[in-house]
Each structure stands twice: as structure tokens, then as C-alpha cells.
């Protein structure tokens, strides 16, 4: 793919455990200052002119580190990059100074449409070249490494020539982008497509990962579905332990997008992740 200046590695000021920032928790965060290390804000919710969304983002960003996590970059789409969106993202980043800016390794629409879903890509050379070019463009515009999340998926493509993890590893080497490793998505995909989740994790370069996601899933017939409406399952926590052993104490985020419980309940769930993180740090310091 040729040589090219890579973006400088990011100093990751995030550590510990965070929660996805959701409007239903805004006031409780400000009132109770919960024991959460950082919050991840859904980028598109804050691409507005003002009002409550930006008021609360500003207030919470004054008190906690923030990461921006998008769903509409559509880095894999064969439509042109949406430069208006990128400009708005950069403006938002200047406002809330996120520690990380992430999105998903997927496409969301074509021909100007947006399905608002994180759609899968075939893992082959054409996709690799396409993504490499676009990731470099985005990194140049944002002037920082892009962090991309592995998605859950329910189909695979006959034209794929890479494993999912082999594809991600190659992409990080080519572009200098970092990975947001969603542990639940690895678990879901491993179940749905019959590969080993630990093979996936062991196939990712150690220095490529900037963050973990954990979330819950549901069962639908023979498939696991990444619904984010359940507590994190024990096997996903087990897989997180494996990931911590390989990638070190990267920041962990608990995602919940549906059936969102009160913040206190999420903090309790987060404590499990915190304990795993502490156990890993204790083991590595011995």
C-alpha cells in the first residue's frame, strides 16, 4: 500500500471504566457525581445547535473525561466521505475536547441514504484499499488517529479472503488507526459464525487497541443478537479478562441502549468490570 506518514500515537487520557452517556442519566450525573471514570457520548446526539444536549455535554465534560463515539461516519460506504459531517464532528470535538473519537468499521448507507444501521463489509483487498484511503483522509481532517469498533454482524460474504481479525490487524498496520474492541461483538460473531473468540483477540496486534466495549446481547433462534438491552453476560466478562491479559488495562466502557436502568444499577454492573481491571493490574504488578 506504500509508505505514508502515520498519525502520531494518541496519549490516551482515558482509564478505568466508563458508561455510555444517555439523556435519561444527565441530571443524576450532575446531582450525584457517580463513581464513573469517564463517559462516552454518542456523537450524532450532539450535532445540534444548542439546548439540553449541548448544555449537559458541556456540564459533564467539565467534570469527567469524554470520548465521542459516532454511528454515521460510514467509513466503508462507497459514497463520498461526508465532509459536512466531518466538519461538524471536528467542531464538536473542539467544544468538548474528547480523549478519543471513534466510530464503527462498517457502512451505513449508499446513494445518499442512511439506514442508521452498522452494516457489514466483505473482508477482501478491494475493501482494504477503500478503507485505507478513507481512514487516512479522515485522520488528516481530524488530525488524530481514528478509533474504529469491530461490529456485530449476522451475514458473511463469500468473497471475503481475510478473517475478521486478520483484516483488522492489516488495516491498523496500513493506516495507524486504533481499535475499539467490542468484546460482546466478538463473542456474538464467534457464536454466529463458529470461530474462536480467543483466536480473534490473539490475532489483533497488542498495540492496536485503545478501548474496550462491553454490552449485553439477546438470543434469537440460532443467533445471538447484539441488542445492548441486557446486562453483560458472564462469558463476555470472561472474554474481557482474556483481552485485558493481551492488551493491558485499556479503558472499558459499558454500553446500554435499550431498557436503560437507573445509573445506580449500571454502576453496580460496572463494578464487575472494575474488579477485573483491578485484578489484571494486581497480577501484572506482582
Amino acid at each position, binding site marked *: 500500500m506504500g509508505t505514508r506518514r502515520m498519525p502520531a500515537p494518541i496519549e490516551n487520557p482515558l482509564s478505568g471504566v466508563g458508561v455510555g452517556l444517555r439523556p435519561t442519566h444527565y441530571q443524576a450525573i450532575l446531582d450525584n457525581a457517580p463513581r464513573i471514570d469517564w463517559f462516552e457520548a454518542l456523537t450524532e446526539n450532539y450535532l445540534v445547535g*444548542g439546548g439540553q444536549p449541548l448544555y449537559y455535554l458541556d456540564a459533564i465534560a467539565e467534570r469527567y473525561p469524554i470520548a465521542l463515539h459516532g454511528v454515521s461516519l460510514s467509513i466503508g460506504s462507497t459514497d463520498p466521505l461526508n465532509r459536512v459531517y466531518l466538519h461538524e464532528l471536528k467542531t464538536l470535538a473542539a467544544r468538548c475536547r474528547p480523549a478519543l473519537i471513534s466510530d464503527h468499521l462498517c457502512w451505513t448507507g449508499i446513494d*445518499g*441514504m442512511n439506514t442508521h444501521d452498522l452494516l457489514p463489509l*466483505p473482508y477482501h483487498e*478491494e475493501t482494504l484499499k477503500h478503507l485505507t484511503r478513507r481512514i487516512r483522509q479522515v485522520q488528516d481532517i481530524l488530525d488524530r488517529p481514528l478509533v474504529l469498533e469491530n461490529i456485530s454482524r449476522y451475514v458473511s460474504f463469500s468473497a471475503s479472503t481475510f478473517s475478521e481479525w486478520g483484516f483488522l490487524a492489516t488495516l491498523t498496520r496500513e493506516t495507524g488507526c486504533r481499535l475499539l474492541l467490542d468484546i460482546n461483538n466478538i463473542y456474538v460473531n464467534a457464536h454466529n459464525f463458529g470461530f474462536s473468540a480467543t483466536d480473534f483477540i490473539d490475532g489483533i496486534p497488542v498495540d492496536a487497541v485503545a478501548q474496550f466495549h462491553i454490552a449485553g446481547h439477546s438470543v434469537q433462534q440460532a*443467533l445471538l443478537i447484539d441488542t445492548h438491552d441486557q446486562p453483560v453476560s458472564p462469558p463476555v466478562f470472561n472474554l474481557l479478562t482474556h483481552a485485558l491479559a493481551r492488551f493491558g488495562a485499556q479503558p472499558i466502557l459499558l454500553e446500554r441502549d435499550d431498557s436503560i436502568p437507573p445509573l445506580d444499577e449500571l454502576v453496580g454492573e460496572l463494578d464487575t468490570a472494575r474488579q477485573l481491571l483491578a485484578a489484571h493490574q494486581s497480577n501484572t504488578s506482582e
Partner: protein
Amino acid sequence: MTLHQLQRDFQYALIERNVSALQESTALTEGTELALSIYQHAYRVRLRDALRSHYPILEKYLGRMAFNAYVDGYISRYPSRSVSLTDYGDQLAADCLAHLNDVDVNTASELAAFEWLLGRAFGAAQGAPVTVAQLSAINPIHWAGLRFTPVPSVSRHTVTTSAVTIWRQLKMASTDTHSPPTAAPPITPETADTPTHWVIARVDLDVRFQSIPREEASALDRVLSGSPFAEVCEPLAAHHGEEAARVAATWLKRWIEAGWLELVS
């Protein structure tokens, strides 16, 4: 098959609920019927949930089943072209008129338009509302040429039905947690005897609306469309004579105190 063609076929399968091109291409590995149905279902649920979020009172007015049936058609007619789901559904008030059945479509349409404007105000920019003090500092000889623009959260809405009354009653009922979400609409729509004129605006973080008299609404509409202040006063002369300028100035002061206007020139 190119990546571009694959994405076209995949998107077509989701939006048009037709997987034949995708399956005939053999782009997918086998055994994907259930998987594709998950994507198709998720696509529609996500857009439907966005519309439910933007039009919660319209949903109560129509009832959940009728609302879902209607928005399923809307989603087919209007695939999203927005980066954010926040912006999805902007055609719904107009679309109601042509595609809702078994309901007073004018009331439903005005209710939808009202809810959409409330939502727009929620996330609008703060703007730079002019103050009475700033206006007082302007030499009165320049007032005739003053032009204003609405602050971003402000909009005007004229209603010819009982849509706003219905909105208020269903909104109050929605705070009663014992009301089932599928409750039949409790209100019979009526055409208002005379149109009512509403201003929607956000004050600090809260979206509010208030009615204003017809004549004041007409004057405000002229201000919001960028007419200079002199042209706002002129039509008032027929009714108010020499008092026209004083009447207009009184309204202007009230609009400014409400924080509705930015000064253009």
C-alpha cells in the same frame, strides 16, 4: 461483484424488503434468510422508534397500531437521508394529509407539524437575542429600517383545528402512568371556529408555546420574514390610525422581552 454493487444490493434488500438481487448474486454465504430478516426488521424498528420519539402525542392520538401502520408506509416513502435520526421525519406533517386513513387528517397533520416544531426548538442554537436595552440605544430615526430575524428556536404555527388542545390533553394524560399506550384517542377533533396563532420558542432549556392574537401574529410574521419595521407598521394604520406605530412598538418590545428576535440591521 464490486463493493459498490454489493452495497447497492444490500441496501435495496433492507429498504425495499426484497432480497432477491442480493441472494442471486451469491455475495452472501449460505443460510442467510434469518440474518437478512434481522437487518430488515432492525432498519424499520430504528426509523419507527425515531418517529415515535419525534411524534409521541400523534402516536397517542392515532393509537399505537394505527401509528405503526402509517409510519411503516412513511418509512417506505421516505428513506432517511439524514446523518442523525434527530432529523428524520420532517415530511410527516405533509405526508399525513395524503396517507392517513380513518382519522381527521387535518388535525393529525397540524398535530404533527406542532410536534415537529417543538422538537426543532429543543435542539436549536441559542442565538443572540436582542435586548430592550440594545434597541433603546438605537436612535429612533433609524427604527423604520430595523430588520429582525427569529432566534433559531422560534417558529410560528397557525392552527385551524383543535390540534393544540388535543396535544395539551394527551400530554397531560401521558403523565398518568396507568394509561395504556394503545388507548383509543379520547378527543373528537373539531375545526376551530377561528384559526389560532402560536409561537414556539425555547426559554433557556425548556421549550414553550403561547398563542397570540391574529393581528399580532400577522405583524410578527412580517418581522420574522425580514420586513423592515416600517413595513410592519404600515398595515396597522387602517385599524389603528395614528396609533399604529405605538401598537407595533408595544408588540416589538414584548417579542424582544420574550427573547424571540435577533437584530439584523
